[in-house]
Every structure is written in C-alpha cells, then in structure tokens.
C-alpha cells in the first residue's frame, strides 16, 4: 500500500474522531425542534467534520482497493480512545489497550497488502 493512502487515512480518521467528539457534545442537550437544532453548533460542526473526513477518505479510496483501505477507518477508534483517556478522564483498562494493539497490528498488516 503506498504512503499517500496511509497519510490520507490518518488525516481522515483524525478529523472523523474530532467530528465524533463534537457530535457527542452536540447530543448532550439535543432537541429536535428546528429552532434548537440550528443553534446546536456542536452537532453542525460534528457533521461538517464527518463530511470533510469522508471527502478526504474518498481520495484514498480512489487510489487503493476498498477492502484494504476501508479497514484503516478503525484508526478512528484509537484516536477516540486517546481523546477519552486524556480529556474525558476515562480509564485505560488492559482490555482497551489490547484492543488498540490489535487494531494497530491489523492496520499494519493492511498496509503490507
């Protein structure tokens, strides 16, 4: 797998993880009333970041095979875990660390295809 794909996937997943964090914040005081929805800036920012992440990811899909490139989206689980450990005071259990390790191993294997 060539390096532009990996770089694009890393950037895309970082932006996607930021989007997920904003969406989470936006879901806290969620109201479906249009007047409230429009003012839910976290929700709007989250969705915008997701769209941006998708557009960048498609650039990677253009170059590589989908079954090799799509699994790289799992990197976002790692970024979200790091965000929750550092900023949301969540515990880094052995199980979660093992999960991160397995994802990294899997991603490395994908880059070898």
């Amino acid at each position: 797998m060539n390096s532009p794909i990996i770089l694009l996937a890393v950037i895309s997943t970082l932006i996607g993880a930021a989007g997920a964090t904003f969406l989470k914040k936006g879901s806290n005081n969620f109201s479906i009333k249009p007047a409230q929805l429009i003012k839910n800036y976290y929700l709007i920012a989250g969705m915008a970041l997701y769209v941006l992440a998708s557009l960048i990811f498609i650039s990677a899909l253009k170059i590589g095979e989908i079954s090799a490139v799509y699994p790289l989206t799992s990197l976002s689980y790692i970024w979200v875990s790091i965000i929750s450990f550092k900023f949301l005071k969540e515990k880094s259990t052995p199980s979660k660390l093992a999960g991160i390790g397995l994802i990294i191993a899997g991603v490395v294997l994908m880059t070898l295809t």
Partner: protein
Amino acid sequence: MNDNAKSLMLVVCCTLFTAAGQIFYKLSSYTYELNVFKLITNWQLLLGLLFYFIGGLLLVSALKLGDLSKIYPFISLTFIWVFILGIVIFKDTFSAVKVVGTLSIIAGVAFIGGR
C-alpha cells in the same frame, strides 16, 4: 422482542447501510474531483453520504435501546460486509494477510468497546 434484540437488529442494519455508503464512496471516486460543483453533482457521493447518515441514525436509535458495550462488537460487521463486497463488486485481491488484518481489527474493536 426485547430492547436488546431490537437494539442489535438496528446495529446490524446500521452496518449494512454503512457498508453500502462505502461502496458508493468507492464508486464516486471514479469521477471524483476536488471542485465544489463536481462534488455536489456526484450522485454516487450524495448517495454515499445519505446511506452513511441513515446508518448513523440507526446507530443512535440502537444506542437508545441497548448498552454500548453489547453493541460495539457488532459494529465490526461493517468490515466483513465491505471485505466481501470489495471482492464481489470490485474484484479486490483476496489474501491471507488481508483476512488476518481484518480479523485483528475486528477483535481490536470488540476489545475497545468491552468493559
């Protein structure tokens, strides 16, 4: 049907929609250009975004009914669908490295979501 079962069904539907969204993204990449007009008229891209969005709504609905830790492992079904569809639709190469890598990622996601 109890809430947990409903929740799992919603997650499975979510994974199907997400996988379909990714297929449309791949299809959109053939005519993909970083030009605003070209992007908003790229129907495969628009469909992909729509399917992804629906997948997201299904996931939110699933989370309202069930525990995140029970649902998390099933989100990995998307990896399996995309793997199969990649081979069937786009004639992707099939290799042991890809299978092991995908399985490792699926296991990793399950561990991250668990307690």
